[in-house]
């Protein structure tokens, strides 16, 4: 047996419980193979338990264990880092709980908070450093820790209660679908629920839309006075949150 044949057989045993592959590895190998399979499953289960403590509290120990088993069977690990393994777990939760979007949304939030915690560093600018900016040409750059997820339930309130060890509120569906913003500020992962207006604004600015063009879009949607005020509020909030890491003066678009 060549090395690659052996390694394929070991993969088949670990990930698929393939008894025929296990026998090819060695007639006397069964006790050792059980140790390796147990290590493999225990590592993945521990990774998911560490990453989704609030989700476990929310759906209960037994249901969470069932979700882990389903996920380990559905998604073999592919990255060199265990940190990547939790990324697909919210999709498994969505499959297991198609009528309960709160479960996958809570999973997504926990995963996004972990990702923000180790995302690339970039110092935030403050309002005090922006005095000389030509706002007609200003382009905003956001922290690389920023992420946006879907939000259709009161998961932010549920997460906060679970984190504080308090009784969480009953799940409630939002009147209108929104979004959840996750980022890191001062080495702490943070989140807040946002409406569709802010979500669209964040996506457009992240895509390169200048601040003047954002103001223009707001004016077109909400009128001169209200549109400018809303754009100003967003800018103030983003600065206070530490979301903006650079403001550069680009060329004026027609």
């Amino acid at each position, binding site marked *: 047996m060549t*090395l690659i044949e052996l*390694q394929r057989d070991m993969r088949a045993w670990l990930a698929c419980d393939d008894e025929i592959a296990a026998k090819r*590895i*060695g007639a006397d*190998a069964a006790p050792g*193979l059980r140790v390796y399979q147990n290590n493999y499953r225990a590592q993945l289960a521990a990774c998911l338990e560490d990453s989704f403590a609030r989700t476990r509290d929310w759906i209960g120990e037994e249901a969470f264990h069932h979700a882990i088993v389903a996920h380990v069977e559905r998604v073999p690990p592919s990255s*060199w*880092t265990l940190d990547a393994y939790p990324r697909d777990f919210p999709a498994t939760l969505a499959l297991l709980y198609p009528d309960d979007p709160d479960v996958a949304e809570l999973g997504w939030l926990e995963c996004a908070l972990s990702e*923000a915690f180790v995302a690339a560093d970039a110092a935030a600018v403050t309002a005090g450093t922006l005095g000389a900016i030509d706002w007609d040409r200003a382009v905003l750059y956001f922290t690389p820790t920023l992420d946006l997820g879907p939000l259709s339930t009161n998961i932010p309130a549920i997460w906060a209660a679970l984190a504080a060890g308090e009784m969480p509120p009953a799940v409630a569906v939002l009147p209108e679908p929104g979004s959840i913003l996750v980022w890191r500020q001062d080495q702490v992962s943070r989140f807040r629920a946002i409406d569709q207006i802010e979500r669209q604004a964040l996506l457009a600015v992240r895509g390169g839309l200048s601040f003047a063009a954002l103001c223009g879009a707001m004016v077109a949607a909400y009128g001169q006075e209200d549109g400018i005020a809303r754009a100003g509020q967003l800018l103030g909030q983003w600065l206070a949150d530490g979301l903006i890491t650079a403001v550069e003066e680009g060329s004026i678009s027609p």
Partner: protein
Amino acid sequence: MPIAGEEIVTTPFAGFGLGLRKPHYAEFLDRRVEVDFVEVISENFMVDGGRPRALLREMRSRYPVALHGVSMSIGSADGLDGAYLARLCALVDEIEPLFVSDHLSWTRIEGFSSHDLLPLPYTREALDIVCANIDRAQDALGRAMLIENPSTYIDLAPADMTEWQFLDAMCVRTGCGLLLDVNNVFVSATNHGFDAIAYLDGVPHDRVRQVHLAGHSQSKELLIDTHDQPVPASVWDLYAHVMPLLGPVASMIERDDDIPPLADLLAELSMARRIGGQTMRRAA
């Protein structure tokens, strides 16, 4: 830049250290802990940024740091993961570690990553693959690596050589050094019925730059390398046997589970200082 086959073994460092684990971070930062170096798991810090990377920079400003990897997979028949190697190189460039080490094992094949240190057959084919992978890693890192002997639970026969002969040939061909895990020798010797003393006498002593000391657990059929117990007498005995055979080496306690107060680990490290210090003086 190292070239395969040349004498590129990393510079010796004599001292006594600990594996740095999360429950002890604050103590290492609040005061000067009496260790000569600390070792961290490389992958825990191969992230883009945030607190882990900042913490490692802070530790590095206070202590020599060894980077110990678990995911390079030097035994993968389909070669190394380039993305992994690039991240490790970036970390090594920033931290300038005392040692860069990983295991004589494999974790990944064709896009599947087991996140466990899986055994290799000690065949000439495996030796060629391991050496090619170490050459690639050392070329990318621009320095010699240390390779650790594993704990294993399967004896993959037929073999062309013993594990210590495999390690010797690997060192000669790649110029890498050895991280000798004495507990792993005891665990594998017990599981597979070979003589631990013959192993320790057979490894290339001049290539050993670091020694790991750890504990293990007894399962129904096998000893398991759990790192959740104090170093047992059986492992201290092997340590006392091998230390006079080695040149200047860095010895450390490795504890990964059921982590006790730092004072307990420092007491264990005192034992290593007593045994290792005596034998090093005797050897000198």
